[in-house]
């Protein structure tokens, strides 16, 4: 790990201003992903701004009947919150399907959204990777791609966004709240928060230099049956090959976001009109334009079959 200077932030706005001013500065909250990457030289911050002391760790009701989740609310606390368990079960389920008990105790809401990809070539500093070293190439394309994207990738990158929580938040229409270096606050819909790689895969989110996530708001509950189904190589403590986050209403309508298949949580509101026609028809629309590799073509089939199971479960619960 390369040496770095360290400060404890005193306010969100001061933290954002400091991060914009100091070259190579990064925020640290839970640190479970950042420190992992610093140890192998993928991340080499010059300066760490510890935001853990900021009062951003509460979950409050909003005037619109939703919830505002502070950026520093730990994954364990968010999953265990009685309001989340009752009204946004999808979010609890997604959080509990991710990582281990130890990691969920440390990982934060904002940090979870900012998780870096688990693409093996991103982790291996001996390999080219456009995300880690812009312009160096992509070793995953033509390489070992079993775990990588089947849709939304580009000729520069086929990495997958690994967060389970973000997939649930995409289905729930969450909004990310931030403070910018100039002190201005803004609200970014989750659909626009994560970017597709295009020619610049190292730019992963809509955040600007220094911009700090302060919270995530969830709109009023939409009811329905909430199901998060994650398919992985072992029964616990593994990243998704495919995950399905679904909210299904009694009439068969609903919302579906997929994890493990794309550089961002994959949802297409226009395709959701086909959901009452079943998993095959709907997945055909949602994953139209998929360009899988030989190694990960199974994900397209797996997504359809997982959704089929999810819809069956939702139907059973709703009746």
């Amino acid at each position, binding site marked *: 790990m390369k040496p770095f200077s360290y400060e404890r932030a005193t306010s969100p706005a001061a933290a954002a201003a400091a991060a914009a001013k100091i070259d190579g500065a990064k925020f640290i909250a839970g640190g479970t992903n950042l420190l992992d990457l610093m140890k192998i030289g993928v991340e080499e911050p010059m300066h760490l701004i510890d935001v853990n002391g900021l009062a951003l760790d509460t979950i409050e009701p909003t005037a619109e009947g939703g919830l505002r989740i502070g950026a520093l609310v730990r994954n364990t606390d968010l999953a265990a919150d009685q309001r989340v368990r009752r009204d946004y079960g999808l979010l609890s389920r997604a959080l509990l399907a991710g990582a*281990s008990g130890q990691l969920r105790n440390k990982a934060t809401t904002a940090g979870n959204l900012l998780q870096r990809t688990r693409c093996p070539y991103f982790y291996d500093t001996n390999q080219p990777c456009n995300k880690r070293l812009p312009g160096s190439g992509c070793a995953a394309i033509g390489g070992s791609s079993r775990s990588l994207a089947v849709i939304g990738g580009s000729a520069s990158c086929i990495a997958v966004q690994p967060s389970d929580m973000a997939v649930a938040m995409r289905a729930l229409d969450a909004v990310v709240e931030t403070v910018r270096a100039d002190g201005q606050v803004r609200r970014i819909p989750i659909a626009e928060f994560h970017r597709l790689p295009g020619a610049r895969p190292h730019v992963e989110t809509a955040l600007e230099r220094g911009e700090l996530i302060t919270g995530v708001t969830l709109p009023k509950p939409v009811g329905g049956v909430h199901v998060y189904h994650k398919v992985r190589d072992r029964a616990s403590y593994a990243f998704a090959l495919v995950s399905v986050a679904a909210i299904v209403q009694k009439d068969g309508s609903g919302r579906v976001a997929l994890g493990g298949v794309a550089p961002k949580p994959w949802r297409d509101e226009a395709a959701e009109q086909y959901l009452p026609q079943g998993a095959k028809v709907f997945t055909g629309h949602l994953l139209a334009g998929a360009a899988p590799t030989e190694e990960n073509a199974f994900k397209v089939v797996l997504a359809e079959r997982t959704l089929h199971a999810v819809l069956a479960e939702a139907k059973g619960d709703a009746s």
Partner: protein
Amino acid sequence: MSNFSDWKFTRREVLKLGAASVGALASTSLPAAPAMEGGRKPVTASVAMDINGKAETLTLDTRTTLLDALREHMHLTGTKKGCDHGQCGACTVIVDGRRINSCLTLAVMHQGAKITTIEGLGTPTNLHPMQAAFVKHDGYQCGYCTPGQICSAVAVLDEIRNDIPSHVSADLTTKAQFTTTELRERMSGNICRCGAYSNIVEAIAEVAGSAA
């Protein structure tokens, strides 16, 4: 013929000697100026923590993980370094009542925190009930993952008591249960390469049963 018993050093002392001789070599071949790494100068910072009931203030390189602070600076070597990447759970300690991977957090991030390691749970003459249960049920083979397993297990029972749900909880709206299925899921962040899992679950279940 030389016999191993003739050696007066323990393995640990030999390791220390080895490190000292490397240090001696380095001191003759390197300038005395502060080492630069990757063109950057190491930075130190102070942190005050309560470690196993004792107030401690440490001045550390900012890069020092909580795990390295405990092992290398406090000489609390019960906490183990397995993968050093949060994948194995051998480094699990309890911080402010919550289990975490001490390898994936910086010591300087824990100003004012209350840290409990395996040394703080019990002593050889006064075992914590979870330690006693691991001994009784043979919940280990080589023992390397055991301190992490035990710290994790103690915290798992608190998590169930505090109604934190898990991936296998059938209903999110009812209180979390002390079942074997729950224990297995909740312990998935602690890997045992010897495969002592079934005995580990029996040990935890026994403590859970007496505490439930």
